[in-house]
């Protein structure tokens, strides 16, 4: 019996009632795609992309039903607005966006929100930032690299193309120049270049296989480590800081058995690339080596002709890898982890047989869909944020133990990134009327583009104060000290002024109005009764309300847990 394709078996899920009709339709659609390959005319919008969200939900629901796991209910609209805006626009919603959103019909609300946010310049900034945080974490403000990423994202370049541009690191003019920074920043440490490429583009950490075959993972041998390294071994930088390759040379290593070996150009799936380097005479080698030394020392030295590029071979091999699809599965897994909190494969750099994915068929299908649609990250992101799995509540008050993160049965509260937090602080401390209404943004997109660019630049000046979240992230006391005592918080965030929330709060006639204003602007929701009461009590504890009472109130909400997390 031939095995099910991943998609069809997922669709055999626990469908009941009216779902069945939808499923049948989706199944037809997917079968068509599977039979005919990508249908570019359908790729852009509507039904087919939604079908991927359905695919996600069926796979996850099926597994949870089988395991008897109860999922959390869908998040309330306010929570979903804030979450989706943080994930797609890199900031909290303005209260005018909230006014617009709450008037949308419930059935299409999320889709309309998603489609609007994805058209804003905010989306490009935030996707750029997310890719930057992934690929160049040690250099958070590399202008050239960030400029390249922004251009690539704005032009909607396929991920496979970006991968090619970043690894090829060819000399370029204009914004594309920055693509070389991924390689350039690592070229002095061959091990870093090798392992970071494997980790960040293929979801595989092979560093343990450097000194010995991987102790825990049967898949990774020393041959794989040095095989990957062989693709980078010839890479060097010239005096002019161009990324170049030597025309010959290979990697030798000693096995744990003490045998010296030449490393083959071996990709992670075991595919070996034929080394098409022509043979050079000793004379030619000597002259080429002299030329390379000159390139490393002198600005105007002539490049050495190279007839075979191992780095180019790696790029071609990775993109041609139809079987394992490391390139596609990795970015799917990392995008899912970014938006949902945990990857199907977790940790995300452990994509191997010893650490199976929580939903292997789904991951495979999403990878295949990405490849079939020209590595379109926007399509992937849109599908994920339209799924019910994405939209679940993150609060868990049940007596029963919270389901494990890889069941995706309950959403995870994720710490904001430094840029998300910075941009959000700037929005939350301005008065509601400081931001344009949704129809104004639509009418004058250029003006919003300018506003949003300013916001992005201002956020740059704050982000250094916060730490990029890592796995099992713990917020340091430094951040609490900064918020509690730093001049910038007191004099800038809490400043009074015509465009400031402090000013509007002071002008509020009653504590109830102040509470409503505060919570709708800062937390994107109405205050709970108990919270309004806290404000009433806060103001009542002194005979005369001072500016400092208003500032303290705003500070207390800004520094609170709800604001610090995407939940």
């Amino acid at each position, binding site marked *: 019996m031939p095995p099910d394709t991943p998609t069809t078996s997922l669709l055999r899920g626990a469908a009941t009632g009216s779902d069945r009709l939808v499923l049948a339709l989706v199944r037809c659609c997917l079968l068509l795609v599977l039979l005919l390959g990508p249908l570019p005319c359908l790729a852009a919008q509507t039904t087919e992309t939604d079908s991927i969200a359905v695919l996600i939900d069926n796979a996850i629901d099926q597994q949870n039903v089988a395991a008897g796991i109860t999922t959390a209910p869908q998040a309330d609209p306010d929570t979903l607005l804030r979450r989706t805006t943080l994930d797609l626009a890199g900031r909290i919603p303005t209260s005018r966006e909230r006014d617009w959103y709450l008037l949308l019909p419930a059935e299409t609300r999320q889709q309309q929100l998603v489609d609007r946010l994805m058209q804003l310049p905010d989306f490009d900034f935030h996707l750029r930032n997310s890719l930057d945080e992934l690929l160049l974490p040690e250099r958070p403000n590399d202008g050239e690299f960030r400029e390249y990423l922004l251009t690539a994202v704005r032009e909607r370049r396929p991920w496979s193309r970006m991968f090619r541009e970043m690894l090829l690191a060819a000399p370029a003019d204009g914004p594309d120049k920055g693509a070389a920074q991924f390689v350039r920043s690592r070229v002095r440490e061959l091990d870093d270049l090798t*392992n970071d490429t494997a980790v960040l583009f293929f979801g595989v*950490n092979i560093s343990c296989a450097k000194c010995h075959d991987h102790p825990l993972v049967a898949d990774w041998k020393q041959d794989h480590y040095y095989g990957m390294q062989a693709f980078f071994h010839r890479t060097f930088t010239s005096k002019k800081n161009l990324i170049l390759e030597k025309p010959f040379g290979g990697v030798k290593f000693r096995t744990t058995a003490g045998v010296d070996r030449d490393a083959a150009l071996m990709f992670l799936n075991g595919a070996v690339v034929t080394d098409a380097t022509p043979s050079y005479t000793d004379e030619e080698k000597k002259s080429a080596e002299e030329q390379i030394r000159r390139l490393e020392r002198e600005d105007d030295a002539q490049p050495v002709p190279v007839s075979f590029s191992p780095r180019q071979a790696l790029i071609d091999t990775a993109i041609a890898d139809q079987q394992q699809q490391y390139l596609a599965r990795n970015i799917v897994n990392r995008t899912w982890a970014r938006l949902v909190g945990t990857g199907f494969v977790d940790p995300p750099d452990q994509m191997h047989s010893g650490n199976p994915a929580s939903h292997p068929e789904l991951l495979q299908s999403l990878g295949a869909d990405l490849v079939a649609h020209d590595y379109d990250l926007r399509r992937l992101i849109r599908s994920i944020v339209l799924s019910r799995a994405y939209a679940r509540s*993150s*609060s868990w008050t049940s007596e029963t133990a919270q389901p494990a993160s890889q069941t995706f049965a309950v959403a995870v*509260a994720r710490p904001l990134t430094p840029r998300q937090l910075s941009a959000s602080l700037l929005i939350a401390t301005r008065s509601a009327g400081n931001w344009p209404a949704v129809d104004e943004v639509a009418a004058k997109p250029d003006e919003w583009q300018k506003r949003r660019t300013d916001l992005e630049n201002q956020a740059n000046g704050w982000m250094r104060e916060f730490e990029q*979240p890592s796995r099992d992230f713990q*917020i340091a006391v430094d951040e*609490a000290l900064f918020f509690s*005592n730093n001049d910038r918080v007191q004099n800038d965030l809490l400043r009074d002024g015509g465009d400031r929330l402090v000013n509007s709060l002071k002008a509020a006639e009653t504590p109830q109005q102040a509470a409503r204003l505060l919570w709708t602007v800062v937390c994107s929701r109405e205050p709970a009764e108990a919270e309004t009461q806290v404000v009433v009590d806060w103001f009542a504890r002194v005979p005369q309300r001072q500016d400092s009472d208003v500032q303290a109130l705003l500070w207390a909400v800004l520094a609170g*847990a709800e604001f610090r997390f995407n939940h």
Partner: protein
Amino acid sequence: MSGKRLIPVQCGLSDVAGVSRRGFLGGTAVGVGGALAADMRAVNGLRAEEIAGELRRGEKHVILLWLAGGASQLETWDPKPGVKTGGPFAAIPTNVAGIQVSELLPKLAQRMHLTAVIRSLNTKIADHGRGADLVERGRLDDPGLRYPDLGAVVAKELGRLESTVPDYVSLYTSTEGRRKGTSGFLGARYAPLFLAENMAPPNTGLHERLTAAEHQDRAALRDLLSKRFTAEHRGSTVGSLNSAYQRVQGMMASAGLFNIEQEPAEVRARYGPTQFGEQCLIARRLVEAGVPFVKVARAWWDSHGQNFETHLELCADLDHCMSVLLDDLQERGLLEKTLVITLGEFGRTPGINASLGRDHFASAWSCSLSGLGIRGGVVHGATDAEGHTVVDGEASAGDLFATILQAVGIDHTHEYMVGSRPTPLADFGSKPIRSVLV
């Protein structure tokens, strides 16, 4: 995974009460005040209440005297008078029969019973940056894996999660060889409080526009409003935010620990007016208040020229300050709880160059360990007659790292799980030097 430690482990708030009107400020303020009071008890050297293991965690300390640039073993712990490489200084007997040190350390010689010397370090790397990486972390970083340094590991293992004092302080005033220290994969929670220009920790002073009462009320209001969220969102990352804010008052109160004006004049006179002396006194104050790890850097030992003049000056400072520090700790009953280390990124060449200097040398050099967990009056290992090679008891950076951890009661073979990679506290294969341990 049993037996493995997951990092970092931290509890969320568990005691979430409902909103009680008007009562909230009073209730929380007592909590804040209580933390302050506990902190001040510690500052005054009084024993706080016994709170099971948590308190024990706050009771062991390490002071690392970092000899930046690389001190000469021949002018300190491994003198070779009378040979070609020996230099002009003599060796003197110590108060432990059979052990001699350089005549540049006369006071420490009289405290040799407190100290173990390791004369057989071979750490191989003789450039400042990578040498310091290796010695501070006990190994070099692997691709994709940044290791925590000694201070971060000690802070994690000996610090209290809810500590009101910092758990890793690094004082590094001079610019030469200045390094911030790194908590690597342990994350920012264990990064050092790094003080370079100013001996007051950043953001610990009350803002001029706020009174202490306003500051505390505001914090209590934050705690109260935050609870609604944390009650519904468990997990250590969410919990860590409130934990961080709970440490604010303590950190502000502990800022006074850095102010040696608060010490009696005679104590300050004893340590002396040098910067190193003052920072050793700060280190003692911090340890007394419960800080697990303090690093005091003294620069710049990198004597490529005029090695002997350099050491004449720097050894006098080290000899005096460390002797006073050992005495002071001992008199306060703290030496049995505190390990004092002298260490740099490497030693110096036995060969004397044309500028009468000694160059970088990592093949056969020395360090010292005193106090907690250490068998005093012991020398481990030996170098050849001229000091070129280790002839007995060779020890690597990993071995030294393991030795230090064992001395303070941390099992160096315990493993952190970094992602799915088990990572022992000291490098694979490291062996503690048993002869210097109690």
